[in-house]
C-alpha cells in the first residue's frame, strides 16, 4: 500500500521516472510475446525495441505486468492500441481511454500508436480492425477522436494506415489524402505499415509506389513490417490477407527500402502475431530490417543539412 502511494506521488511531482528513458531511434524491434521472455533475457546486448498490444496489459496485476516491467527496464517499449475505435462513428469509450492513460503513465512508453479503424459497434466488440469510408464527415469525427485521445493521454499518438479488403461506395477522398489531413489537423504522427500498403494496393488495384509518394513520410514515427497470406476475391483475382503469421514478403522488403532511402531510418517493427516462431527466427527478421536501417544511417541528418 505504502509503495503504491509513494509511486503515484513521485509520478505527480515528476520527481523520478520509474523506468529509464530509452530511445528506439534507428532501431528495429519485434512484437513482444511472453513466451519469448526467457530467451530475450538470456541474450546479452541490444535486442531492439518491443511492441505490445495495450489491451493485453489492462488487467489489474499478475504475470503480464511482471513481464512488461522486466522488458521495459532494459528496452524501449512501444504501446500499440488495437481497439480504441478511433475510426468508428460512436463516441470513444471513456473507460477504455482511462485504462489506456493508466498504462501510458505506468510504463512511459517510447512510442504510442493506434489504428485508423474501428472494432466496437454499440456495445459489441468485434475484435477486428474494420474499415471506414473516407468522407468529410468521417474525417471530422476521426480528428475529434484523435484530439480526445491525445488530450486524455497527454501526448501525441502515431496513427496506423489500415489494410482493407473492401471499399466504400461513399468514399470521396483517397486514403493518403484522408491520413495527411488527419495528421495536419490533429498534429498526430503516423505509423506507416508497409505490408498494409502492399496488401491494400494489391486488393484494390492501385500502385503501392504512388501511395508512398502521396504519403506524408516526414510525419512517420514508426514503420510496421509483417507477413501476409493469399486468397482469391469473387472474380478469382488475388486477395491478400494481413495475417501477421509469417515472414515479410520480398515485395514488402523492397518497398521498405524505398521508404527508408527517402525518409531516413525510423523505428521499424516486425509484427508476428500468430504461428509465432522461436525467438531467434523473429529476431533474425528484425536484424534484416536493422541492416537496411544501418545502411541508411546518417541519411536523415544529411538530407536535413541540405535543406
Amino acid at each position, binding site marked *: 500500500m505504502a509503495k503504491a502511494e509513494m509511486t503515484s506521488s513521485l509520478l505527480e511531482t515528476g520527481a523520478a521516472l520509474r523506468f529509464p528513458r530509452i530511445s528506439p531511434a534507428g532501431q528495429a524491434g519485434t512484437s513482444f510475446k511472453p513466451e519469448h521472455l526467457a530467451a530475450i533475457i538470456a541474450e546479452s546486448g541490444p535486442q531492439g525495441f518491443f511492441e505490445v498490444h495495450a489491451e493485453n496489459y489492462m488487467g*489489474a496485476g499478475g504475470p503480464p505486468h511482471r513481464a512488461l516491467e522486466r522488458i521495459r527496464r532494459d528496452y524501449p517499449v512501444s504501446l500499440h492500441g488495437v481497439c480504441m475505435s478511433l475510426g468508428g462513428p460512436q463516441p470513444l469509450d471513456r473507460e477504455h481511454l482511462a485504462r489506456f492513460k493508466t498504462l501510458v503513465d505506468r510504463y512511459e512508453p517510447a512510442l504510442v500508436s493506434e489504428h485508423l479503424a474501428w472494432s466496437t459497434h454499440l456495445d*459489441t466488440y468485434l475484435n477486428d480492425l474494420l474499415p471506414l469510408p473516407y468522407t468529410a464527415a468521417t474525417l471530422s469525427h476521426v480528428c475529434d477522436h484523435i484530439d480526445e485521445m491525445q488530450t486524455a493521454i497527454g501526448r501525441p499518438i502515431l496513427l496506423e494506415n489500415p489494410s482493407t479488403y*473492401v471499399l466504400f461506395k*461513399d468514399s470521396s477522398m483517397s486514403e493518403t489524402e484522408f491520413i495527411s489531413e488527419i495528421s495536419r489537423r490533429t498534429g498526430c504522427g503516423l505509423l506507416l505499415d508497409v505490408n498494409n500498403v502492399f496488401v491494400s494496393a494489391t486488393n*484494390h488495384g492501385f500502385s503501392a509506389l504512388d501511395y508512398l509518394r502521396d504519403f506524408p513520410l516526414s510525419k512517420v514515427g514508426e514503420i510496421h513490417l509483417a507477413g501476409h497470406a493469399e486468397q482469391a476475391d469473387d*472474380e478469382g483475382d488475388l*486477395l491478400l490477407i494481413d495475417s501477421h503469421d509469417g515472414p515479410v514478403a520480398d515485395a514488402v522488403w523492397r518497398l521498405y527500402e524505398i521508404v527508408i532511402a527517402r525518409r531516413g531510418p525510423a523505428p521499424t517493427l516486425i509484427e508476428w502475431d500468430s504461428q509465432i516462431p522461436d525467438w531467434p527466427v523473429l529476431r533474425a527478421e528484425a536484424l534484416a530490417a536493422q541492416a537496411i536501417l544501418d545502411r541508411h544511417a546518417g541519411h536523415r541528418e544529411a538530407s536535413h543539412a541540405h535543406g
Partner: protein
Amino acid sequence: MPTADILPLPRADFAGPFSAALLFPDAETPALVTGPRGKRAEKRYDVYRNNVTVSLIAALASIFPAVERITGPDFFRAMARFHIRETPPTSPLLFDYGRNFADFIDRYAYAQDMPWLSDVARIERLWLDSYHAADAPVLAAEALAAVPPDDLPALRFQPHPAARLVSSPHPAITIFAMNRGSGPVGRVENQSEHGLIARIDDEVTVRRLHSGVFAFLRALFDGDPLAAAAATALDADAAFDLPGAIGEMISAGAFSHIRTEADHVEHA
C-alpha cells in the same frame, strides 16, 4: 455550397450496416461496400466475417483450453460459434470474455451428456480472473503469530485479490487438472469437489480442499471472524483441524492480511 460550413456534419452510420452481417454468414453483404472498379464484395466482406468469428473462437479457446481438450476442437468450435452469436463480447478486453460460457454449456444440447463440463469452464474462467487480479502481498505466518491470543476469536482474514473458491457436485477440479496440460487422462471417481484458486509468485494454482477446510475458508471469505468460521467448519467436518487449516491456507496464498476487532489495524 456555403451552408456546408455551418451545418453540423452528419455522423454517417456506416458502422451499423457494416457490422450487422458480420456474425451471420447467411446475411447479405452490406450494400455500402464494393470491390475496386465495381468488382463484387462478397468474398472480400467474408474476410471480415471470418476474422471476427475465428478470432473470437480463438479467444474462447485460449480462456477454456481444458474444455476444448475434453470436447475436441471441432465440437468446441461449433459450440463457441453458437455462443459468440448469442453473446458477443461487450468489452475490448478479451481476457474478460466468456463469463456466460459455462451457463451456455449448461443449456447446449450436445453437451448434456457431460454434466461436469460447465463446472470445468467455471474453474477455467476463475483461473483467468486469478491470473489478472491485482497484485498484493500474501499474508505471512509471522503476522498471525504476532496476534495476542485474546484477539484470535474475533480475527478477520482478508481474501487475497487473486484468491477464488470453487465448488462442484462433480469431480470438476480433477477433470480440469487432467485436461489443462497435454498429459494422459485417467478414470475419475464421481464425487463432489471443493477447492481454492490462488496465485503465489505469479503462479496460479488450483488445489482441492476437504469439506471442513472449504467451509472454513468460505466463512472467512464471507467476512466471518475466526471463531465463527471454525464452528462452521466443525459442523461440516467433525475431524476439522483448525491450526492445520490456517497454516495450509496461509501457505496457499488465500489471504492478504488480517484485522483484529480491537484496533482495526491491518497486519500483512
